[in-house]
């Protein structure tokens, strides 16, 4: 009875808001913390709606039309998607995107880990080295890729000339004129550009692992390989997963490198979703198909984003 009385007299105020059961008043409408919270979230929500949700749904609606530049599009259902799947260029684009992303992310992960381990051991000029390492990542990609384009030039490029002089190759490599070498070239440039980000991020993970763990393992007789396998890798896994997934998103939607180096050639062997969508939608004016191409990437990115979110939530555990 006493407890019931107490419930009736003591107001329940979740999150410090208005007491339950009391009618809203005008002053609460303006000053209540719930509304203030909504107001604080509103700008971010509007940004997401305006810059993410609206373009996405607009692209979705465009992909279902035969929209050409400057004229209203006629609804065609899924015909754009069906047409694309029947075209060899698009099928090739899908294959290219997976090869490019898979290879580039794998190489960046392995080299990034190696780079981080080396940086962790560096004793002299550590800060300077870290600063220099970030250069490829911070230089505008348009400029740096143009530099690579000159270096891959078959006639005057420093890559072929250098390797010839060093005796590493007997004949010039057709960097940009052979489908396989062209793919290798765009992957090299992507790795060059993305590697510093991997290295520095992994380094941040490495320095957060307590030294005591390694000391204890060494006392127990663990070698370097065992320490790496049993301590470094498991403790680095959350950051490793985050960086790899983030890189998958950035790599699969890459545009600059391919557009400047090869424009999707030779023989469409380096076209990615972004470059093909640009060519079809913006250059050729077939906006409906361009939107459909760019939406094909959505399931991949959605799956990656889902994994990334799961990983982020698990991290504190």
């Amino acid at each position, binding site marked *: 009875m006493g407890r019931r009385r107490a419930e009736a007299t003591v107001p329940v105020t979740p999150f410090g808001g208005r007491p339950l059961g009391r009618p809203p008043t005008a002053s609460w409408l*303006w*000053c209540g913390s719930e509304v203030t919270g909504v107001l604080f979230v509103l700008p971010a929500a509007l940004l997401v709606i305006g810059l993410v949700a609206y373009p996405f749904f607009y692209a979705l609606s465009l992909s279902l039309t035969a929209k*050409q*530049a*400057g*004229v209203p599009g006629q609804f065609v259902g899924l015909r754009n998607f069906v*047409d694309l799947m*029947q*075209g*060899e*260029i698009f099928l090739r684009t899908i294959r290219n995107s997976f090869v490019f992303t898979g290879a580039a992310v794998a190489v960046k992960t392995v080299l990034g880990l190696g780079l981080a381990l080396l940086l962790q051991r560096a004793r002299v000029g550590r800060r300077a080295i870290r600063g220099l390492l970030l250069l490829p990542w911070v230089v505008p990609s348009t400029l740096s890729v143009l530099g690579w384009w000159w270096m891959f030039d*078959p*006639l*005057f490029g420093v890559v072929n000339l250098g390797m010839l002089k060093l005796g590493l190759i007997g004949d010039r490599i*057709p*960097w*940009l*004129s*052979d*489908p396989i070498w*062209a793919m290798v070239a765009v992957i090299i440039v992507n790795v060059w550009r993305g590697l510093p980000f991997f290295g520095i991020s992994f380094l941040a993970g490495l320095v957060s692992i307590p030294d005591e763990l390694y000391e204890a393992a060494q006392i127990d007789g663990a070698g370097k390989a065992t320490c790496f396998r049993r301590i470094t890798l498991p403790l680095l896994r959350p950051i490793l997963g985050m960086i790899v997934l983030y890189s998958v998103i950035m790599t699969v939607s890459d545009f600059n490198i391919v557009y400047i180096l*090869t*424009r*999707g*050639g*030779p*023989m*469409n062997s380096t076209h990615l979703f972004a470059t093909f969508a*640009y*060519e*079809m*939608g*913006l*250059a*050729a*004016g*077939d*906006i409906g198909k361009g939107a459909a191409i760019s939406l094909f990437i959505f399931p991949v990115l959605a799956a990656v984003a889902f994994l990334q979110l799961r990983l982020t939530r698990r991290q504190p555990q």
Partner: protein
Amino acid sequence: MKQARVWSSCVVWAVIALALPLLVLVARPGLCGTPAEVTLLTNTHFVPAFETELKKQVEAWGKQKGVPTRVDFVSSGEFNAKMVSEAETKAGHDIVIIKQQQPALFKDSLVDQDTLATELGTQHGGWLPIGEQHAFVDGHWKAIPFYHQSFPAVYRTDLFKEIGFTREQVHNMTWDQFLEAAKKLHAKGKPVAFAISQTDDADNNLYALLWAFGGSTVDKSGKVAINSPQTAKAIEYVKELAKYMPRDVLAWDDGGNNRFMLSGQGSYTFNPPSVWATAEKDVPALKGLLDHAPVPAGPAGRFRTTTAFYLATWKFKASPLATDLIRFLMQKENYRAQLEVTWGYNQPLGKAFTTLPIWRTNIPLNAYEPVVETLAPMGWPGPSEKGPAAVKAWIMHIVPVMFAKAVTGTPTAEAIRWAEEELRQLYR
């Protein structure tokens, strides 16, 4: 009290935020009695002097009319995307210089220019078929023919002389004779070459070759016609010729053939006069050694690909001032100055200007005008209403990729079948 201050401050900021766009709108030229700016957009020119001349003429017109003017340039690579974005957003320039089959592509967004095109056509001695072909769409002039840039051959006179070819022989060469010359020049270490890659120059080279062998992407009705014995013959020819060209042609961009010739490595390619003009100005070793020639002839004739440019105005930007500026730019003395400043790079679309002395007094420019080949745009001989499909086939470089596939080992029939499938999707 404090809360009230916070809210009043919020209200003030909200009013400012709402009022700012209105202030910007009101301050726009043309809304407060200030004359509106007249703007023109074109792609960057391979001869920078043309950009200077164009700006000078537009400014002169602006001074006459008391109107502020602006000329914007975008690189060739970004040009198509820029046009699409202007058409789609319904915001942009008063006058745009569009090219190829774009009058058909943007026909619903462009102002009909029937009266002006007829008036200027009379002044310019009548339009060449290439000028009319894609500017006249669905019974209306969607744009004013401005100029065209064609792709004749440019070659080293000294090297051809060494292998026993006179100027007359090079100018009257067939593709078979060209192959023989290519073999000899390859043996001398000075090969012939042209792009077989995903770049505009490759389309310009290979469409002309395809037509010369009797092949074409579509027939006159716009039906896909690439799968023919003539196309197969053209491919077999290029497969043979490619043995004597550097492999790099599979990766060339539009500057590839320029670098090839100006480095002194090449003996023959196809290009407007920028290679020759640069050599005359900046490469003493090649000065006086370059000449232009008509494209070699094949069993079906002699063809030269060209890119026509047009002056157009968007419906959402239509104004009498834009029409007046177009008329000014097309005035005889202005138009002549534009042609002359480009050293023949810009060729006229009006018949009266094809006989200008510039193409006769400069011996290496003789092959430009009068054109002895059949001039045709990519997508020929398809009808103008199939222009959007022709644009897509060009932008996706279907013809160069077909040749590149065959050259790199794909069976000829398979390469043609691939091109046929892709073209069918575009010309549906």
